[in-house]
């Protein structure tokens, strides 16, 4: 407990947030780096995983291949992959660019399986009859995807993004092993200096960041909850209660 209190004290010490303080400080610089690596990797991963997932979910093609392939990707240890990529890119790229390229690729590979699974599982969960009806009404394949499948699959798509984001935020910590910044820097310096405040403080910062971003996703999922799908959509429920003191009679007359 003392250790945690002391670590919290370290985090909230204003001196550690002052710009220009000694590396690995100030904290906000590391925090921003952490978020930047995370966001960059997620954007690249989404650009690959979402279209691929939509394609598989819409057409049903290549499903088996992708499931086994992403399963294998999940099994890759990110730290091992990072070292391997550093070696490979260290050979071709400059000393500056190799770590960022290697690290980004590792995180992208980490993020893809969850996003992909969310995207294609989401599309597959849409009722076939609804899609058939949309097609029979004269929607083009693109309209079916954009106006029917994606809106109806949104909860699962966001779920995949959320899982991927958490994994990446937690794992970006290891970027410091590649000589990059991020909150991992604080932990590695702590290990080097045998300073528990730094180690635990860094870990708590990563945890706090992950929980904060997760809460944002929870909020986004709630706000984008497809009306008409969830009976007890919180916003709708609140409205009903405001208008009439008593709950309405069941609407299926």
């Amino acid at each position, binding site marked *: 407990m003392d250790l945690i209190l002391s670590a919290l004290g370290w985090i909230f010490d204003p001196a550690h947030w002052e710009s220009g303080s000694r590396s690995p400080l100030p904290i906000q610089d590391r925090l921003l780096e952490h978020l930047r690596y995370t966001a960059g990797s997620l954007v690249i991963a989404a650009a690959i995983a979402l279209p691929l997932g939509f394609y598989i979910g819409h057409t049903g093609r290549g499903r088996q291949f992708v499931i086994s392939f992403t399963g294998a990707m999940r099994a890759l240890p990110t730290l091992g992959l990072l070292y391997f990529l550093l070696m490979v890119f260290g050979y071709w790229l400059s000393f500056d660019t190799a770590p960022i390229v290697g690290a980004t690729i590792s995180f992208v590979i980490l993020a893809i399986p969850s996003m992909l699974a969310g995207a294609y599982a989401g599309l597959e969960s849409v009722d076939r*009859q*609804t899609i*058939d*009806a949309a097609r029979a*009404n004269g*929607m083009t394949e693109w*309209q079916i995807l954009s106006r029917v499948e994606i809106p109806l699959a949104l909860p699962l798509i966001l779920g995949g993004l959320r899982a991927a984001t958490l994994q990446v935020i937690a794992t970006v910590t290891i970027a410091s092993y590649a000589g990059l910044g991020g909150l991992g820097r604080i932990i590695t310096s702590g290990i080097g200096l045998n300073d528990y405040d730094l180690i635990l403080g860094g870990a708590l910062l990563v945890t706090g960041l992950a929980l904060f971003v997760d809460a944002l996703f929870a909020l986004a999922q709630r706000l984008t909850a497809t*009306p*008409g799908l969830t009976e007890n959509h919180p916003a709708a429920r609140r409205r009903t209660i405001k208008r009439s003191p008593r709950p309405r009679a069941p609407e*299926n007359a």
Partner: protein
Amino acid sequence: MIEFESVSKRFEDGTVAVEDFSFVLPSHKTTVFVGSSGCGKTTLLRMINRMIEPSSGRITIDGVDIAGRNKVELRRSIGYVLQAAGLLPHRKVVDNVATVPLLQGVSKTEARGRALDLLDTVGLDRALAKRYPRQLSGGQQQRVGVARALASDPNILLMDEPFGAVDPIVRADLQAELNRLQRELGKTIVFVTHDIDEAFLLADQVVIFRKGGIIAQAGTPAQILAEPADDFVASFIGADKGKRTLHLQQREGDEGLTLVVDGDGRPIGVLRDGTLEPEVPGP
């Protein structure tokens, strides 16, 4: 007028759904395809809006081969009603009805206004317009499905067992409503069902199928009832068991009322003042 010219459909796994089917469906009439599951009736229906492509043969609408028409345009010009309504669960009733006009680029206000009129046409309260499909009963959803199919004012209406998933009382209601609508609108309706009584109730022309999309008999309900072409048709319409032969019966304790019973002895009505009054919906 929809014309099938020796249309066949073989699926990739080798099953033959329809073999050399030729038939003419007259305009402004209701043609009902009836047969047991897997007889190819739904396949034939879905060929009309190119949801399924024939393996050979051709289908023309008013003399124009549909194979040469853009699939999406064709489907927008034909109303389609499915078994479970197939409404978009994330859109309000009014937007569901307006689906096709919106796809065709009609302005939102205009499409919604017309959608509200259509709710009246199919006998739904306008207050339901703002609800989501899940908040409606099965029968109401089915009416919304019909309204959606009518939204672009198509000449042709395809109905694939639309009343199969609702209870008998609501079904009788919807059937009566469809008959009323058809008297007003005079669309070319192609209706698929496995319920021969529904077929007789709605059809100007009934087509009874055997397996493989082969016509067992086609004709008006009266023609088929009076002269079933063969034993298959007779058993399909229930004539062989005397189901269509009605008798009068008087039972004890009925105080002079005369029961009308079918061949199984099942009461289907009472005789009063020389008219037959059904006591249960159905035959």
